[in-house]
């Protein structure tokens, strides 16, 4: 048993695998560092947090106002119109769902692959996933036209004997996204229970003890509990792995199952999944860099972690680039004139500015990560990761809008123009995302305490003193 455990690693092993954390840490310093953040008093909390939170809440308020206006006036306040009836709302939905893929990937797939560096970043990547999926879920909900009957999406017995149509990819989407949201939330929460118990046991005020105790559900760290906990965690990882791959595949069916040139391609599921992981990792890096700075986690989320994530971004960038080129090749090789036109139009038509924004942000700029210096440069990685997210938004825009605005019949062609409401709603969704994320960083353990400890070298991490 112990021979496979890197915590008992030999010196030779350590040479190949540098320690996961920077500096000298033991179990107590790790606990104090991570659980110390939720225990901050008002004066200890950095001003930056208050400023960021104020901005995020204001943006959230704007989202609420935009949605209220939409419900009052109707979908006409958006730029969606014949022929592009799927405008920004669907683009934003796919964009946010895509971002929501990195968390579960890090916690599930890297867990199954025994990538121990994941323990420093999995908690807040999972949190990011849940908040991104929450943002994503808003858009199809408010896009249905009559949002007060949005519950028709679910198979609820009713006096009209009316049921959803299960042979439609839009309904598969309902099941895929809601399953993904539920499983991600449970995965995140289950992993957090022992850490909440740690905060409970350190609590100095009765209110904190009660609240964290409530959510820790009476965890007492007994080995029999750990045994079942670990088994449940492993099972969840094994379940979440195919799930995370399925979710964006199903999202891609929304397009691929339709007949429209530019949508009706079999490459979509893998291409969407690669893109989702790509954008998700870019978002994790753009969040991790400020978070480790402001919350003092530089020794836990080290440059090696950031570099590893940048390598994943580089790899997925090339997968996405490969998919773009394959699409173009198949459009030519397939010989379907409509398909050929759709792709020529993307590259050279009136949306070519969007196509080339997408292509350069997603394929060209990430190539800079081939250089170790750039992989390890904080400002450059921030710029590239933000560009990747811009590029991935454009990818969804290109797919959705160019195909719809140039379909089979030239008489129905058109040009999509968004409205101010479109833009403010999208910006507002970032308000929701950052509000939730900032609350999470401030009040919950943002690094998985128990998981980090489990991967520390046992002899060095033990607290021998008082």
């Amino acid at each position, binding site marked *: *048993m112990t021979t496979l*455990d890197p*915590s008992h690693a030999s010196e030779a092993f350590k040479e190949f695998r540098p320690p996961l954390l920077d500096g000298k840490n*033991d*179990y107590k310093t790790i*606990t104090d560092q991570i659980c110390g953040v939720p225990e901050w008093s008002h004066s200890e909390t950095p001003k930056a947090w208050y400023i960021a939170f104020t901005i995020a809440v204001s943006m959230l308020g704007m989202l609420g106002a935009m949605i209220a206006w939409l419900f009052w006036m109707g979908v006409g306040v958006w730029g969606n119109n014949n022929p592009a009836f799927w405008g920004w709302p669907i683009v934003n939905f796919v964009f946010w769902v895509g971002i929501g893929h990195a968390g579960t990937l890090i916690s599930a797939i890297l867990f199954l692959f025994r990538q121990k560096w994941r323990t420093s970043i999995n908690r807040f990547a999972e949190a990011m996933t849940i908040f991104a999926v929450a943002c994503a879920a808003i858009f199809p909900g408010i896009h249905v036209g*009559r949002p007060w*009957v949005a519950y028709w999406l679910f198979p609820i*017995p009713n*006096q009209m*004997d009316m*049921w*959803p*149509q*299960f*042979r439609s990819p839009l*309904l598969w989407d309902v*099941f*895929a996204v809601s*399953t993904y949201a539920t499983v991600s939330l*449970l*995965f995140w*929460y*289950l992993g957090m229970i*022992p850490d909440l118990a*740690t905060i*409970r*046991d*350190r609590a100095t005020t009765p209110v904190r003890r009660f609240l964290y105790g409530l959510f820790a*559900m*009476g*965890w*007492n*760290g*007994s*080995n*029999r*509990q*750990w*045994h*079942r*906990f670990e*088994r*449940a965690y492993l*099972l*969840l990882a094994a*379940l979440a792995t195919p*799930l995370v791959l*399925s979710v964006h595949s*199903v999202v891609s*069916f929304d397009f691929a199952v339709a007949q429209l040139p530019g949508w009706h391609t079999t490459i979509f599921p893998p291409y969407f999944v690669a893109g989702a992981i790509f954008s998700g990792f870019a978002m994790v890096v753009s969040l991790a860099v400020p978070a480790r700075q402001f919350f003092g986690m530089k020794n836990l989320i080290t440059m090696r972690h950031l570099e590893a994530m940048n390598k994943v971004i580089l790899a997925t960038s090339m997968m996405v680039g490969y998919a773009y080129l394959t699409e173009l090749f198949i459009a030519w090789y397939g010989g379907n004139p409509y398909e050929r036109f759709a792709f020529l139009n993307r590259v050279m038509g009136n949306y070519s500015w969007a196509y080339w924004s997408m292509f350069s942000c997603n394929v060209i700029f990430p190539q800079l990560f081939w250089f170790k210096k750039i992989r390890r440069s904080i400002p450059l990685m921030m710029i590239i990761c933000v560009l990747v997210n811009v590029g991935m938004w454009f990818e969804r825009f290109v797919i959705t809008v160019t195909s719809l605005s140039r379909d089979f019949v030239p008489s129905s062609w058109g040009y999509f123009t968004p409205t101010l409401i479109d833009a403010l709603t999208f910006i507002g969704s970032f308000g929701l995302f950052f509000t939730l994320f900032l609350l999470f960083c401030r009040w919950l353990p943002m690094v998985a*305490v*128990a*998981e980090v*400890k*489990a991967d520390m070298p*046992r*002899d060095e991490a*033990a*607290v021998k003193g008082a």
Partner: protein
Amino acid sequence: MSDTDKKVDLNQEPEEKLWAYMAEFDSADDVIHAAEKVRDAGFTKWDVHTPFPVHGLDKAMGVRPTILPWLVLAGGLTGMTTAIVLQWYTNMVEGPWDFSGYAFKISGKPNSLVGLPAMVPVIFELTVLFSALTAVFGSLALNGLPRHYFAAWRNRRFDRATSDRFCVVIEADDPQAGKAKALLAGLGGRGEVEELHDTTKSDALPKGIKWAIISMVLLSWIPFAMILRKRYTPSESPPIHVVPNMDWQQKFKPQSPSTIFDDGRAMRLPVAGAVARGSLDHVDANGHDAFSSGKNADGSFLQMMPIDATDKLMARGQRQYNIYCIACHGQLGEGDGLVSQRAFALQEANWIQPSKLSTDPLIHAREDGYIFDAITNGIRTMKGYGAQLSAEDRWAIVLWVRALQSSRLRDIDTLPKDIQAKLRGN
């Protein structure tokens, strides 16, 4: 817990009693060695509390594998079955009962479990969902969570078991509890062996909370009971429209009453003597319109069409025939249009084959006006096309039908000589 513990007089001051012995260790390796010794000494009611999952401890303690994976398998199979039954019932079964499914027919795809491929995504998602729910709630239930009380929490030394200490706890109930303290002391932990105390006060939830939960659950049934009652109570009052959905608009619908006009009708009649545009073009001195009706003033059908048969009219007739008539009567007027072929393929019992316009001698023998009238007003199961086609177009179609008949029924010897020669290939 023995029976005597439960029958505690709540009015008495609770008493402290010994609950367990605890030894504390610095490192995971130390606690593994300690656990091996406790296991070998044959203790049964004991546990090790650690801040993180210590690999190797399960073996050292002799913890048997949990049954959780089997529960998850059962959960997954339940999810799979649920998804199949849900989709089959809601989309493929239909009947006259409440909450019946609705048999969707989509693109002629099989409306049975043969259409399984389209059901796979939902089957997959529900399998994963049910498995994951079982994994989370199953592991919590097996772990006895949520729990609101644990005796060791009363001791401040135990607080660090979730941070940086590793604690072996042997309960005082253990048959060998007498040896516990000496054994733990000899394991080389840090500090003294701690005696953990419990209180004789009942550890059940406070009575108030219990009753609050029960009454909340009961109260939550009231709305459902009210909905159910409403559903089965007839009422005179109109349905409640929470969202109006454009059901009421500032407009009059056809055939509806109005208080604006004297006659109380919302619909207006044409003023007296109003004439539709073009309707007087072919009216003769007696007010009869043979051109648009295909009939003489006495009601008999016109023998000959009242319009010059030109090549242009023929072309127009072919075009209009191919738009309006071809679907049933077929391109050559043989009554074999695609609609008819499909109806026979489906063995539609009520389908009557369309007339064989070009080969039926009875139609060939009828007046031009008769065919015109059939187009205008319809005949047997065919509907009239008078509203869609102008009178001129209808005569054009009559001309084309005559042409089709000539191509099939006319004797070649009756044709002009040059055409005979052309047709014979000379």
